[in-house]
C-alpha cells in the first residue's frame, strides 16, 4: 500500500478529485494548508502599505491506495493539477505499513 500525498492549487481540487475517481481511488482526505516552494510568496498592497505574503494557500490531498493503483493515481493527480506555471505543487508517495477499517476491523488492502 502507498500513501499518496499531494499539495495542489486550491482551484484544481475538483479536477483532481474527478481524475482520482476515474483512476479507481475510492477515498480521499483533503485539508487547507499554507506554504511555499519555488513560487515564494506574493505582494499585497493595502492603501500605502505593501506586504510580502510568504505563505500561500494550497490544498493537501491524502489517499492510501494499492501498490498497483499508485502509479495511475499519481499520474492522474499530476495531469489534473498541472497548469504549467510555477506553484502547481508536489506529489509524494510513501510506503504504508498497515491499515484498519474501524467499523469491521478488517486490515491491510481490504481496509482501503
Amino acid at each position, binding site marked *: 500500500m502507498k500513501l499518496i500525498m499531494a499539495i495542489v492549487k486550491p482551484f484544481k481540487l475538483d479536477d483532481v478529485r474527478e481524475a482520482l475517481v476515474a483512476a479507481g481511488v475510492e477515498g480521499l482526505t483533503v485539508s487547507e494548508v499554507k506554504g511555499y516552494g519555488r513560487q515564494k510568496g506574493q505582494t499585497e498592497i493595502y492603501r*500605502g502599505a505593501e*506586504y510580502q505574503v510568504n505563505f500561500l494557500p494550497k490544498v493537501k490531498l491524502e489517499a492510501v491506495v494499492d501498490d498497483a493503483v499508485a502509479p495511475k493515481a499519481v499520474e492522474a493527480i499530476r495531469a489534473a493539477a498541472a497548469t504549467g506555471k510555477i506553484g502547481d505543487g508536489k506529489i509524494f508517495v510513501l510506503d504504508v505499513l498497515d491499515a484498519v477499517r474501524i467499523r469491521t476491523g478488517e486490515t491491510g488492502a481490504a481496509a482501503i
Partner: protein
Amino acid sequence: MTMKLATQALAGLALAGALIGGPLAAPAFAQEAPAQAAADVAAPAPGGVAAAAPAEAAPAATAPAEAPAPTPDKGDTTWMLISTVLVLLMIVPGLALFYGGLVRQKNMLSMLMQVSTVTVVGMMAWVLWGYSLAFTDGGGLDKIVGGFGRLFLRDVTPASNVATFSTGVVIPELAFIAFQMTFACITAALVLGGVAERMKFAAVLMFAILWPILSYYPLAHMVWWWAGPDAVAAAPSDPIQSGLIWGFGAIDFAGGTVVHINAGVAALVGALILGARKGYRSEPMPPHSLTLTLVGAGLLWVGWFGFNAGSNLEANGYAALAMVNTFIATAAAGFSWTLTEWITRKKASMLGMASGLVAGLVAVTPAAGFAGPVGALVLGLIVSPICVVFCSAVKNALKYDDSLDAFGIHGIGGIVGAIATGILVAPALGGAGIVDYTTCAADGDISTCDAATYAMATQVIAQLKGVLVSIVWSAVASAIVFFLIKFTVGLRVNEDTEEEGLDIVEHGERAYHS
C-alpha cells in the same frame, strides 16, 4: 468647574421635572413657567428657540395677540427624525464595521467595542451637558462655546422649537437635539481610527467624555451657532449673534470642519502621542476582512444622506440638492481613488474603492447643500488623489501610525472639501450661492431671499480661516486630552496585550471561532 456644573445640573433637573409635569397640569404650568423659561432662553439653537411654548399658556388668554408663532411642518419633522436614525446607522454598525474590517482579527471586537462605547457615552453626555455647551448662548464666551442654559435639557419640551434656515420655519427642538447628538457621537468615534489596535479601553472611556467637551462642543458652537434667519430678518442692521467661525463668513453645510477636520486632526495627534503599534512597518498588518469594510462603507454612504441632506433641517429642494451631491461626489471619489491606484500600483483594489467612497463623502460634507451637482463631481474627482498621497507617500515618509487613515481621509478630505466649498458655492459654477438673510422677508423659503454678493477670494479666505482655526483648536484640545489620559489612566495597553490582541485581553472574547 465641576462643582458649578453639578449645582447647575441639579437646578436643571428640578426644572425639567417641573416641565415634564407641566403640560399635564396646565394651569400651574401657565402661571409659573413661561416668564422664567422665556428669560432663560435668549437666542439658542441654530436659530433662536422660537419662544418656549406659548401655546401651552393658552388658558390665560390675556396676552395681546402677536404674530402667531410658527409651528413645525410635519414633513420637515419627519425628515429630521429619519435623518437622525440614518446617522446612527453610520456609526453602529457602519463605522464600526468599516474600521473593524481594517484591523487584524485579534482586535476586531475592540474596534467594534470602542466605536460603540464612544457612541453611548456621547449620547448620555449630550443630554447632560453637550447640547447646552454646543447650542446655547455662551454669554461672554459666546464666540467660542455655549452656556449652561440647556444643561440636562432644561426647559426643553415637546412644544419647544428651533429655527431652521428659512424664516418662519421651525422644527421641534427635540428633533434637533437628537440629530445633533448623533453628530457629536460619530465625530468622536472617527478619531478611533488613528489610535486603533493599541489604546486601552479605560483610556477610550475617558476620551469619550473629555474630548467632546474640549473639542467638539466648542467647534460645533463656533461653526453652527447663529441667531437664525428670523432674528436676522427682524433686525437686519444689527450685528448677527454667532460663533467665531460662522462670523468669519465661513460656510460648512454638514460638518467638514466640525466633524471631519476636527476628528482627523485629533486622530493624528492621538496617533503621535500614543506612538506606533508594536511591529508597525516591520511586520504585516493587513486588514482582516475587507468584506466587512465594504459593508461598513456602504452603510456609511446610506447613513450619510441623513447626515448631509438632514443638515438642511427642512425637507425641501436644498435637501434634495444635498442628496444628489452626496451621490455624485461619492461616486466620483470612489472612481478616482480606484483610478489613481490602478495607474500607480497597477491594481484597482477594493479597499481603494471603499476608501474613495468615504473620502468623497467627507469632502462633500461641507459642500453638500452649496455646490452644484457638477461641482460635486469635480470635488469628488479631486479629493481622492490628494488623500492617496497622504495615506501612502506622506504617511510612509513621516512614519506616523495613523492606523486606519482617519487623518489621511477625514482630516485631509475635510480640508479639501471645506476650502473647495468656498469655490463651488459660486452661482457661476452652478453653486447655490450664499443667502443674504438680512433681506429675507418673514415668509419662509430662502430661495426668495437675495443672494449675498459673492466674491471668490473673500469666500475662500473665510473658508481658510475656518479651516485654520479648526485645525489649531482641535490639535491643542486633543493634545490636552490625550496627555491628560496618558498621565492618569494611561493610554496604551502593554506589549503583551498588544501581541495577544485586545479582544481576548481587554474584553475576554474572540470575534471568530473556527
